[in-house]
């Protein structure tokens, strides 16, 4: 059985790289699809634009969504994901460096499954990625 991909919506290549390494250290082997902004993330999810023709039946194991994104921001992406029946089910984890309370509230009210503040410290970051990967990928596979 092929593993479901993890969709990482992140515009910062450093963070992408660190995330990739964090997953690798934690032996999370799901393919990592990276969208560098909200538009691309939506294109990938709905098979439009640059990703036109993609088999959208292949839904991601989890969507890791940065909030601050070029063009269409993370909360808008979340809103669209939850508004479409095809993408309603996959868990969405907001992964951001923001501690703003309003972001947390908005995220949960729009249907985010979890909210993780990206720590500055890399060790803590790896730990967070481990817990995240284990929890959500396992959870997803059992469904």
């Amino acid at each position, binding site marked *: 059985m092929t593993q479901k991909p993890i969709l990482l919506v992140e515009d*910062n290549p*450093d*963070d992408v790289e*660190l995330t990739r*390494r964090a997953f690798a250290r934690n032996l999370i082997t799901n393919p990592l699809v990276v969208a560098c902004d909200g538009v691309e993330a939506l294109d990938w999810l709905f098979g439009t634009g640059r990703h036109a023709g993609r088999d959208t039946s292949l839904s991601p194991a989890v969507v890791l969504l940065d*909030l*601050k994104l070029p063009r269409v921001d993370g909360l808008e992406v979340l809103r669209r994901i939850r508004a479409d029946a095809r993408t309603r089910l996959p868990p969405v984890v907001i992964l*951001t*460096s*923001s*501690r*703003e309370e309003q972001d947390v509230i908005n995220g949960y009210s729009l249907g985010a499954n979890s909210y993780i503040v*990206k*720590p*500055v*410290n*890399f*060790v803590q*970051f790896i730990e967070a990625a481990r817990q995240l990967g284990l929890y959500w990928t396992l959870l997803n596979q059992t469904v």
Partner: protein
Amino acid sequence: MRPFGIPLPLLLGYLVLVAGVGGAAQVYHRTIEQRFRNQVEERLQAIADLKVSELVHWRQERLGDAAVIAETPQLFGRLRELLAGAAAAGTEDAIRSWLRAYRRHFQYSRIRLVDAGGGCRLCEPAEDSTSCHVMDEHLPRLLAAGQPDFLDFHQEPGGVGPHLGLVVPVQDDRQRPLGALLIRIDPEAFLYPSLRRWPDTSRSAETLLVRRDGDAALCLNPLRQDPSTVLHLRTPLVGENLRLPEARAALGAEGLHEGVDPQGRPVLAMLRQVPASPWALVVRQDLAEALAPLHEREWQLLAFIVVLLGGGAAAFGLVWRQQRLRHLQSEQASEQRFRLLFQHLTSGFALHELICDPQGRPRDYRFLAINPAFERLTGLRAADLVGRTVLEVMPRTEPEWIERYGQVALSGEPIRFEQFARELDRHYEVSAYSPAPGQFAVLFNDISVRCRAEVEIRRLNTELEHRVAERTAGLQLALRELEAFSYSVSHDLRTPLRAIEGFSHILLEEHATSLDAEGRSCLERICQAVTRMGLLIDDLLRLSRVARTELQPEAVDLGQVAESVLAELRQADPDRQVEAVLSPGLLVRADPGLVRVLLANLLGNAWKFTSRHPLARIELAETAKDGERVFLVRDDGAGFDMQYAGKLFGPFQRLHSQQDFAGTGIGLAIVQRIVQRHGGRCWAEAHLEKGATFFFTLPLAEQT
């Protein structure tokens, strides 16, 4: 209205005077009249009594004379002899001379001697021997009586007379009638003059001697007005004639009688019956003449009353005139004042008369008077308005004006209102009242300027509100920008830090063999610096959050919050020996979340700066400064140099080295921000190694 405006009390006073004088005059007049009538009656009575007594006396004298003849033997014997036909010579002459003397003495007009058959035997004077029919008629009766008697007034058929007759019968010894002496008495000789006599110069006074003759009264003496009536004036005793005194007297009445004379004039009469005679006496006088002095008195009285009342009227008139003059003067003064007020009043004033439709609803109104201010305030001319109606002058006048004024004029209730007059394009403040039914007066001021100012104020207010709203919107925008900035700092600054830290870590862990010891040391320092920068950024964001959080004040017990904070500190550092002294009942009204941050910082500082001492004491209490309640957090820790107290509350200001006490220097900045947001103040006192005290004020909770 009173006639001529004469004051009612004056008029009443005069009427009372008139009534009083009239009444007094009436009583006086009646008394006088009664007294005068009594006098007239008494006089009439005296005259009547006097005349009656004269008549009685005269008759007795005459009968006495006759008796003397009968009882004079010399004469009477000779008469018998002569009548018996046995007279001696010379007897006749003797009788004649005696009779002559007798006639002359008593002023008889004729004496005749007749025999029983009526034949004349002797006559004195001799030349007048005509017989008398009346005498002849009564002779047998008189002879039979045998006593001297009168033959009452009679007139000879030939028109001689009137006369009175005195009969002296002559009898023989056996009382048989032989004849008689017939004496003719001329009433003009004594009786008539006596009757005619009157004690004063009355023109209407009249004395009547009457005798009842069958069913009529016969007047026996000639009247002054008409002497021919004697023995001809027969007054039948019926009907209206009974009002005549002579008729009354003939019927036997006596005393005072008020009646009329034959000419119908009212007369006053005294009636008397003459004793021992068929006569009745009437003494009468015209009432007009009798009462003439009374009327004269009446006229005098009337003149007196007229003079009195005239004088009274004049006096009253004078008083009234003076009063009126004074009243007019005061009225003039009042009118003058009113006119001055009317002329110089700065408010517009006008008097109007309401005009109603046939249903009694106000339809229009007419201008009666207008003051100069009215002209000034409306721009209309009095000459164009007075006498005309408002709809004639200003047809576009709003109906509510007429309606409102109509209510005032009809109900009498005054009103006050402000209204815009379309015709005049002005705002007016109007007071209206009704000085008389159907009229109303208005007093008004032009408040157009004020109204325009009010409109302007409203406009400015609206504009100000707009501006405030704009500014608020601007501020909100700035605040949002600030939030965005904070957000940006939070997100954007942390991201490169994470990259630095992350890749440094990877370098250290995966490429350690490629680096020497110095290279690894450098990388470790980089990692430490990055971690600290992360803390600084977090603190900066915390401070910013304190500034932006919306306050939700409620009653908070500082002691309870402090206890909770200290419990957390103890949990994090269970080996410390710290004595906490918390005063109870420190109630404030503040945002509970921020109060917790405030105390967490202050108590955290105290906890931290006492960490070098094996035994520490931390105190939360309150004190009073200048009458104000001040809260304080005191510790016995490291303290600080008061020289740097001014820098204490600035962000990232630190008085201790990182080696001595870790920290970013943001805590007290946050404390100050929280206190200031609640409108309070905070300051600190300390001595090196003798501890520090942080003071702050917060709004107090209302005591329940």
